[in-house]
């Protein structure tokens, strides 16, 4: 049985972090015409943040409760 615990709180924090990273004004900051290896910065930014979120969620969920 899953119990609401510190894990739940960490996940909520991640949710809030995601809300911040995927929104104005941070998106605007990366919305410029710059490129990284020929790939638009915004594209790189969104997908790396997305991947980072997933990794963090996986770490939080899979970490054994201490």
């Amino acid at each position, binding site marked *: 049985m899953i119990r609401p615990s510190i894990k739940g709180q960490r996940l*909520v924090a991640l949710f809030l972090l*995601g809300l911040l990273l995927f929104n104005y004004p941070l*998106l605007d900051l990366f919305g410029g015409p710059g490129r990284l290896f020929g790939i638009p910065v915004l594209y790189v930014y969104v997908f790396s943040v997305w991947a980072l979120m997933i990794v963090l*969620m996986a770490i939080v969920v899979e970490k054994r409760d201490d």
Partner: protein
Amino acid sequence: MLTAPVIVLASFAYVGLLFAIASYGDRRADQGRSIIANPYIYALSLAVYCTSWTFYGSVGRAATSGIGFLPIYLGPTLMAALWWYVMLKIIRISKRNRITSIADFIASRYGKSQMLGGLVTIIAVVGIVPYIALQLKAISNTFSIVLRYPDVVMPAKHGAPLFLGDNTFYIAMLLAAFTILFGTRHLDATERHEGLVAAVAFESLVKLLAFIAVGLFVTFWMYDGFGDIFSRAAEAVDTSAMLMLGGGTGDYASWGSLTLLSMAAIMFLPRQFQVTVVENVDERHLNKAIWLFPLYLLAINLFVLPISFGGLLHFPGAAVDADTFVLTLPISEGNAWLALFAFIGGLSAATGMVIVETIALSTMVCNDLLMPVLLRMKALRLTERRDLSGLLLGIRRGAIVLILVMGYLYFYLAGEAYALVSIGLISFAAVAQFAPAIIGGIFWKGGTRNAAMSGLAAGFMVWAYTLLLPSFAKSGWLPITFLSEGVLGVELLRPQQLFGLQGLDDITHCLFWSMLANIGCYIGVSLLGRPSADEHRQATLFVDVLRHPSAAAHGSRFWRGSASVEDLQRLLGRFIGPERARDAFAAFARSRGADSPAALGADAALVHYAESLLAGAIGNASARVMVASVVEEEPLGLDEVMNIIDEASQVLAYSRQLELKSRELETATEELRSANQRLQELDRLKDDFISTVTHELRTPLTSIRAFSEILNDNPRLDDAQRNKFLAIIIKESERLTRLINQVLDLAKIESGNAEWHTSEIDLREVIEDSIAEVSQLLKDQGIHLETRLPLELPAILADRDRLLQVMLNLLSNAAKFCDRPGGRITVGLARQRHYLRVDVTDNGAGIGEADQEIIFEKFRQAGDTLTQKPRGSGLGLAISRQIINHFGGRLWVKSRRGEGSTFSFTVPIQHGGPVWGPTADWVAGTAVGPRAP
């Protein structure tokens, strides 16, 4: 090589494979060796979220708005982080209450309301119809495109006649047939379809692989990696705007509203609810899905922009619909196998969605919309039919066909005017209307049925007005002036600039107004009204589901009623089949430790069990009605409520009494303890007394014996010495006698056996006698004695000798302790109101405050008896006090260190002359007189 027969054959082969997987899954489930009971299959089945909208539509969307297609996938990613709290709760509530659909969930939360269930079903069906149309459009378009291989030809605008002349209709009917075969082969009490979930998970895998295959092909075969595509696209097409969100606030508003919409959709789309909640095997699977599902979304979106830009580069001038790039790019490159794989991937995406969605919707239509109505129609006599499971299946199959026909009609009427994603978003906005009622319902007990009803209705109407009707208008099925001039020419009512609100895209616009109406009504009506008892009970079950792990499991609820086991079993049998009903009841009886259900009796638990079984088949609200038809449930009347209150207050009163009693007991215990302490103290005193007496007796005895031995051993002792020793022996003997007399005396007085010769006496005379007796002693010691004795005094009733004894004791004490030389003793006698008072004052060292009571105890003297030589037996004052007490007076001392002491006693005055009579003391005194031999 891609001829029509090959394509059709491949499609049917693929669907056949799905059937094989599904039936294998069902078989394994029957054997109890589930193949879907692991988190990976669970996460893959959640990916039914990705439909042909994702497979084809995202690329189309990206071609016009660049990165703007992403919020639809970022929202679910964010939401997954909240699943730990939200989804877990929904799953647990649903398992505990045997919830079978989202309509069932909402109806159940708000007091098992059939009206509410019906409303949710209507909203869901109407709202989802465009979404199904989207899938039909995608399949039908891609089918006609792939048929033209190796040419890239866009399908003609719709000119085909309705229904039979139209390929899309046949596709819709084929899908309906699949769905019926998949989902309604039999009726399950829990509405779980293991085989279906396995097939859906497989489809998710296929569409992901197909999309990634096309993505890799475009990015690395047709072009030279990501960088190459982006830079070439930047030169050829104006992509700068697509890769920047920038611009006005509208972009960000739309980004935000799409994120919100998709967050609601991932939870409340009927098919998502079906796979996430209803088909969930073990709530622990949710754990891994929290990150696996977003990972899937990331993977399937990675190549959207490259494919989209590749398509824009490859087909300049908008000759090819961007929604078809996933298929048309492989075709134009002549890669037949990849094109076929892409087509199968798209087919996977569409069929997966249609099958799960229509099964979920048909369950809702049957359980929450049609059955309640049919069961209420007395004319149909449904409640008397023996077996209704056939009817239930029939209704569900009919509903599936109906929903697909509606989807087809929407596609036919409005589908052409919109891109895939735009159609889908209309559905998302409809589904979002469930969010306030559900989220509010599981976290806030105050939400009421009327509030959920009005919120849903208001939101739904605003949605229809601002999004659904305009979609008809844009397709020409409503006058276009409806959009530009509003209803009846009232400009404020223009559906997409409602009340003059401008600057938002149509989805954001609709979301704002509908949520304003929905949440406003939900909160407002909740706060204005009060929930009924039923609603309150359900609200507690839902909101506190994580807090009370077992409360609901035992069906703890107020239930008073009567039913028979046979009735319940027959009722259940009608819906799920007689044999399964019998098995279920037998299993229940075994779990409760009874031989048969009949032995158990139809108690609240059995009724609850039957109701929950039935709820799995026909929904909570209908199950309630059906069970009520065989159970004579007595509503809690006013009398019963009063009884309950009475009982409660009685219990309260009893507990107060108990409290009182226990406090009394405590006091009594305390008293007993102190009495015991006192007894122990007395016992100790008695021991002390005996040992002291023995000690006091031994001193004179020792000296008597010593001197007697001297006399005995020395017969020639001279006379002077002999006389001296004899005198000592006599003196010590007298002391011994006196001591023994005193002890006996005290014992007699204390036990009440003393002899008292009470007579009328003159106290003055007694005092003068006593002074005369001690006068020689005082003279020897040079002590001056003074008396203050009044002449006239009333007589008192007392024992003269005893009083004399007291006076002598006081005087000899005073003589013993007064100063030398210059000792002075004063004896005073005074008359008080009811007493005569005698004071004997000396000018000695006085007695300390601490010793003033001690001196009246037996064998106790003031000062340290260890260092000072004891003077007297230590019994005199104790006896004196006993005597005075006996006459009804008081004896006390007043003294300060260094200022002498005054011993005073009082004796009551005998009013009205001498009284002779048999007083208790006198009787007591005579009682010990000479006895007859």
